[in-house]
């Protein structure tokens, strides 16, 4: 077990939110077709409120802090918040589209000791990337920013969200990431909007495309190992939890709302009314979430995929039942192994399509 795993175990046992994801704004200078947020900035926390939240997180033991948005650099106080978080000794990651990062910002991020800058890149082709972000010139500006960051030895990770429009470019994006000296992560999940609207999930790749991705060595390493089914489910798994959301991870919106995760919009409290400590330890929603072990999941506890499934309780919650299966993860397990999940079997082996129709995006060129 790695040191981080050990600390995670200790944090889980002590109920410490070791990680927090803080969106400081939902405003954005891009309008990505698959974005799960609206971009209203009304009612955002002030600089003072955000610093107070960050201080509260330090007090309860949070170590990993992701500052995100929207586009966090749209806030004039973004660097002030980053500086404050670093002074409180957080391990800080910044999620940004990077179009506002020039040479000076890259130097500041280096000096601050930001652990990693995480940036979404959808394609190596501007006509594809910019059509997804709806911001002309965005790929060029993002790539320039990555070069500034790398010149300053700032660690960068590129996330490549796969959609029907760009999935054929994933290998080229990975090659570009290698050339730039940055990490590459592939993400086939389109998150429904936080208001429950699932229409954007139609932008996702098809089951056949997902199956292809999961059999591509560049993305998964040893294909045989990655795709081999594991059916042993012991007490250790059944007594555990699906993921860290609400156990060692919390999400905070720009308006002070607290949720288990950005992908788990179950309201747990608001920081303008209660302290973080009070919400984290006493919110009925968090307490209920923490009471749910894998063995309590009515369908997934019986599923042969349980031991290695990436089941997201937030996606299940958005489907109406946090104790139920998450369709997207059932589909991933099926695409990976060819074995239907318990939920798919119960539905008569009918595999719901990952996207139910074509969605047009307008090209910029």
């Amino acid at each position: 077990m790695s040191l981080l795993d050990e600390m995670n175990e200790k944090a889980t046992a002590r109920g410490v939110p070791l990680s927090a994801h803080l969106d400081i704004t939902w405003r954005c200078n891009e309008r990505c077709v698959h974005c799960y947020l609206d971009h209203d900035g009304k009612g955002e926390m002030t600089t003072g409120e955000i610093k107070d939240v960050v201080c509260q997180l330090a007090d309860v033991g949070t170590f990993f802090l992701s500052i995100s948005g929207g586009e966090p650099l749209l806030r004039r106080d973004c660097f002030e918040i980053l500086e404050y978080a670093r002074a409180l000794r957080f391990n800080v990651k910044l999620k940004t589209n990077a179009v506002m990062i020039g040479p000076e910002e890259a130097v500041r991020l280096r000096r601050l000791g930001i652990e990693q800058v995480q940036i979404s890149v959808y394609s190596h082709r501007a006509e594809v990337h910019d059509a997804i972000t709806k911001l002309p010139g965005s790929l060029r500006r993002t790539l320039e920013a990555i070069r500034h960051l790398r010149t300053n030895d700032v660690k960068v990770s590129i996330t490549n969200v796969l959609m029907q429009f760009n999935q054929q470019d994933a290998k080229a994006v990975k090659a570009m990431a290698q050339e730039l000296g940055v990490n590459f992560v592939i993400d086939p999940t389109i998150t429904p909007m936080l208001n429950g609207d699932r229409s954007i999930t139609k932008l996702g790749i098809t089951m056949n495309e997902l199956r292809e991705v999961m059999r591509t060595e560049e993305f998964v390493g040893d294909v045989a190992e990655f795709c081999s089914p594991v059916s042993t489910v012991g007490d250790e798994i059944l007594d555990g939890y699906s993921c860290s959301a609400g156990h060692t991870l919390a999400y905070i919106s720009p308006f002070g709302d607290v949720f288990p995760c950005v992908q788990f919009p179950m309201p747990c409290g608001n920081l303008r009314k209660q302290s973080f400590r009070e919400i984290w330890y006493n919110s009925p929603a968090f307490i209920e979430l923490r009471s749910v072990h894998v063995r309590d999941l009515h369908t997934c506890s019986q599923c042969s995929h349980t031991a290695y499934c990436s089941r997201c309780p937030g996606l299940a919650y958005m489907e109406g039942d946090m104790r139920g299966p998450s369709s997207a993860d059932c589909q991933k397990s099926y695409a990976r192994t060819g074995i239907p999940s318990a939920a798919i079997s119960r539905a008569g082996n009918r595999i719901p399509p990952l996207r139910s129709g074509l969605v047009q995006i307008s090209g910029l060129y």
Partner: protein
Amino acid sequence: MSTAEMYLSQSAHIAARTLGDDTLIMSTLDSTIFVLNAVGTAIWNAADGKTPLSQIIHERVCSEFEVTGEEAYADAKEFVGQLAEHGILSISNAPVSPYANPEKAQAQASATKPARPSESGGIQGAEK
């Protein structure tokens, strides 16, 4: 005990948090992770650049843990040397201005659990 005093300062290039008896530290330069045990945490939290190591040992280690001064000092020198090698803290022979640390109450010694001398090395583990 060595005659030359040692003053310890925490580096600015780290992320750190104390959870119970343990302290999790990550270097922002190379992402190396360290986990300090209770004794290491007591020394770490007292590394303010102006308190000599001998005083830290006397006030934070010997008074809290079942260990003699000489044993603790020898172990602590090795421990701080290892951290200094990784740039996690710096050692000087005169007091220095401490790195500004607004972290509330975290600097207070968190050790309450007695440790045997063999446990007093400080670093529980380190990995990249």
